[in-house]
């Protein structure tokens, strides 16, 4: 997607790793206690055990747990996904945004949740 821009992102940490979601993907930010046991954790995508301090609730009801979270209202230009990584993570990778000199992978929340579900099902 050339020339993609994103306005409003949730810059999250999953463990030590960075992951960003478009703000439009998230309906509500919740405490994990409200979604205990049902929520996947973004950490799992990085091969780390599950765990979250905030849960991102999609409008369609999917939840993904993250650790720290920061809302950025800036508009960022999305660097396109390298063709080699197009199908990574079930294709939910939109691209990368550079925030404050760091690259953040921008991921669609719902697809990411699906990917996590699939991965966890495979793992099980």
């Amino acid at each position: 997607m050339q020339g993609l821009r994103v306005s409003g992102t949730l810059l999250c940490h999953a463990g030590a790793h960075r992951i960003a979601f478009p703000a439009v993907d998230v309906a509500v930010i919740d405490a994990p206690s409200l979604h205990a046991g049902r929520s996947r954790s973004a950490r799992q995508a990085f091969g780390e055990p599950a765990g979250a301090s905030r849960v991102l609730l999609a409008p369609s009801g999917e939840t993904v747990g993250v650790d720290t979270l920061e809302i950025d209202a800036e508009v960022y230009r999305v660097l396109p996904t390298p063709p080699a990584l197009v199908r990574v993570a079930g294709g939910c990778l939109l691209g990368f945004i550079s925030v404050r000199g760091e690259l953040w992978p921008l991921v669609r929340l719902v697809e990411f949740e699906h990917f996590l579900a699939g991965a966890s099902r495979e793992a099980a």
Partner: protein
Amino acid sequence: MGVTEAEGRQSYLVFACGSSWYAVPAESAAEVVTFPELTRVPGAPSFLLGVFAHRGEVIPVVDMALLVGTGSQSTKRAVLVRLPKGSLALTASTVAGVSLVSGSLEPLGTSGVHMHLRGPAKGAQRDVAVIDPDGLFDHLSQGA
């Protein structure tokens, strides 16, 4: 891909990752880069160390050692392979340089890894595993 005959002498960029030597066709090898802190990609296979921004482009970095299964090799150097389909960076601990490699190329396969390595190839005073970048690319893009 199958076995092909000797492709004659081609120039390859020969590099080592760990104790194994590899060769990529010189026309595909763009440059040797030193990459900074990598950004991990969620859901990526383990041999994909991450990505980094290089001249406005996001380049994925593959650890050859992890890919082949000989353990990880910490290095900040990589060989940037530019293909029509896209770019890749392969970690290299030592880059020998460009040389001519000849010999029959047979696919080397480690269990479960579909690699397009051909070799052994002589000429560089060593046996090298010739990397087929396209194959590698395809392997990557199929996912782990």
